[in-house]
């Protein structure tokens, strides 16, 4: 008994110590000096008046649906979201059509059997794999992450010197920079090279990517020029595909962005007027008394 207990103690305290070590001594895989500077892109959804370009979201959905969705799910989304305000705003008929092409597992029916039916707008996006194990088995161990929140789940590291870093934080706050995730995704999707730079050995099964931390990614380059046919005449390049699908992922992660930014302006104006009125009342009151 005591042996078991001490074993357990040993294991837990080792775990604890290991965790603390990880915490205390792990540095990001790109430590200072190696950070890949992710260039900032122009996005319609940035800044205080940001909005989604509907046409871009529709093209982005097309890229997601035809390329990404083969391996990556978006489990937080419903088909109905595609017609809701502030998104791609497909027509209801179009969304019904999109949903009906998906096969949804439903049930159990009255006989206790699960069955498949075609999807409706009220269904969640059908996922490419039934579970993570199935995904891992199909993808050689690497599970393709869910993309619902991807645009908010990544933040590029910056290679600023330590003494300039607080300055850049302040600049980001004042300019309202929230697009780090989108910038990173765009850099990742456009960051593949046919040949890795000289001197870099890419492990088997991995691919060289300029933006990915450590530069070796399990996802092969998903896009190529002319891969998808755009209906609206937009040039069919990797850059455009990447930009459009990134915008779509941003909408998927933050579907209330337009509503939020619009309401924000109203709230800020209201509070601004309120602050001025409060200041004037304060001044009127205090003017009469020495202080």
């Amino acid at each position, binding site marked *: 008994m005591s042996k078991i207990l001490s074993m357990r*103690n040993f294991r*837990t*305290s080792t775990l604890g110590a290991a965790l603390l070590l990880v915490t205390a001594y792990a540095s990001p895989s790109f430590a200072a000096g190696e950070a890949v500077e992710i260039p900032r892109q122009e996005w319609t959804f940035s800044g205080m008046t940001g909005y989604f370009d509907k046409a871009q979201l529709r093209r982005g959905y097309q890229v997601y649906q035809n390329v990404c969705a083969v391996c990556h799910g978006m489990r937080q989304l419903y088909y109905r979201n595609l017609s809701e305000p502030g998104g791609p705003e497909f027509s209801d008929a179009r969304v019904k059509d999109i949903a009906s092409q998906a096969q949804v597992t439903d049930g159990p029916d009255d006989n206790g059997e699960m069955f498949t039916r075609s999807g409706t707008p009220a269904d969640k996006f059908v996922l490419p794999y039934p579970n993570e194990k199935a995904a891992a088995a199909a993808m050689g161990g690497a599970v393709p992450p869910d993309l619902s929140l991807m645009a*908010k789940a*990544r933040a590029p590291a910056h290679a600023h010197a330590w003494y300039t870093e607080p300055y850049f934080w302040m600049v980001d706050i004042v300019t309202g920079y929230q697009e*780090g995730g989108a910038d990173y995704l765009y850099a990742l999707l456009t960051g593949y090279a046919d040949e890795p730079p000289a001197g870099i050995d890419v492990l088997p099964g991995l691919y060289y990517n300029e933006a990915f931390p450590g530069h070796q990614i399990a996802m092969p380059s998903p896009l190529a020029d002319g891969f998808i046919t755009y209906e609206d005449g937009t040039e069919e390049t990797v850059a455009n595909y990447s930009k459009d699908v990134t915008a779509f992922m941003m909408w998927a992660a933050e579907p209330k962005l337009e509503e939020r930014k619009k309401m924000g302006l109203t709230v800020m104006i209201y509070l601004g007027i309120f*602050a001025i009125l*409060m200041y004037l009342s304060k001044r009127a009151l205090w003017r009469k008394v020495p*202080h």
Partner: protein
Amino acid sequence: MAHQSTYEPKTAFTRWMDSRLPVIRMAYDNLLDFPTPRNLNYMWTFGGILAFCLFVQIVTGIVLAMHYAADTSVAFDSIEHLMRNVNYGWLIRYTHAVGASMFFFAVYLHIFRGLYYGSYKPPREILWILGVLIFLAMMATAFMGYSLVWGQMSFWAVTVITNLFSSLDSVVSGLGTGIVQWIWGGFAVNDATLNRLFSLHYLLPFVIAGLVGLHIWALHVTGNNNPTGVPLRDPKTEALPFHPYFTAKDGFAIAVFGLIFAYFVFYMPNYLGHADNYVEANPLQTPPHIVPEWYFLPFYAILRAIPSKLGGVIAMFGAIVVLFFIPWLDTARERSTRYRPIYKYFFWLLVVTCLALGYLGAKPPEGGYLVAGRIFTAYYFIHFLIVMPVIGIIETPKSRPQSIADSILGGGNSSQPAVAAAEKR
């Protein structure tokens, strides 16, 4: 309460109430009539701002709890459901998340205000200690609330911080491990852990509210400190009733604070958080860089500055424990740093130290960052344990106004009330 009640019930009902349960008298004396020094500056508005923050957190938190499911299999998705499918759910949730940061931003300014003007000195020791208890309860609440998101950073922060207790194993074998497993309700952070964190996260804000009540009670016994640190002598010339003078002033400050708050909620809701927390918790995958929320970074830097696990834990908790003793560590007779020619430099050095520790807490503890972390950690403790007692003894304070009235009417050191100057204002 310390000041004489001037409340006179005017109607039959209020007279009836007053002789049974004088709540109207209490509200009148404390919220409307309370004599408050005229010379308070805007640093004194953070009390009102913090009350506002607590109110916002409790209201938004109660609504969030209506939609949250404290179950590891659905916790993360229940929040996303709220963000996407509940009317204005995103607004409630972002307000609560940004609100936590705003709460700490305000409380840090409030604490440094107290430190600068010597608000902890007699007779306000208990007022100060209650404040430190509130700060401690806030930290616990914020930590637990962050865990509920059940993202990667939530999960690993809980794992790392609860594991700190296992350092007690080096004192009594098995003690730390036992405590950690008791906290977890298992052998790892699990569903039982999440449920107790949720329960306590809902409980503690009401504990804070209770402590805030005591804090205000203690404040209203001793009365406000003020920028000169000179006690209030004549409420008629030196003070003003709380309402309307300070309700208007605090109201203005809250509106400006609200503008900053709203800017973050509507335009930068995720700036103060961590991207990794939009990835659902995965016990099998450690994030490359575990960092707490910004308001814990100074303490995190202290934890990592000490090259021993138990030592780091003791230093981190010590950094808060030392605050309780400040009323007795500061030997100066002068309250306000305004009239302390030597100490004022050390005060600003402490501010720089805390900012630097915050910066270093976000950096990997290696090379120059680690050396700097150790130097600033050392100064943090030297400040309270050596600088405060020693400077208080050796320093000769500058001359200060004899009374608040002097400072209002004459300014400077003159004891002659310069009425003309006051009228010009």
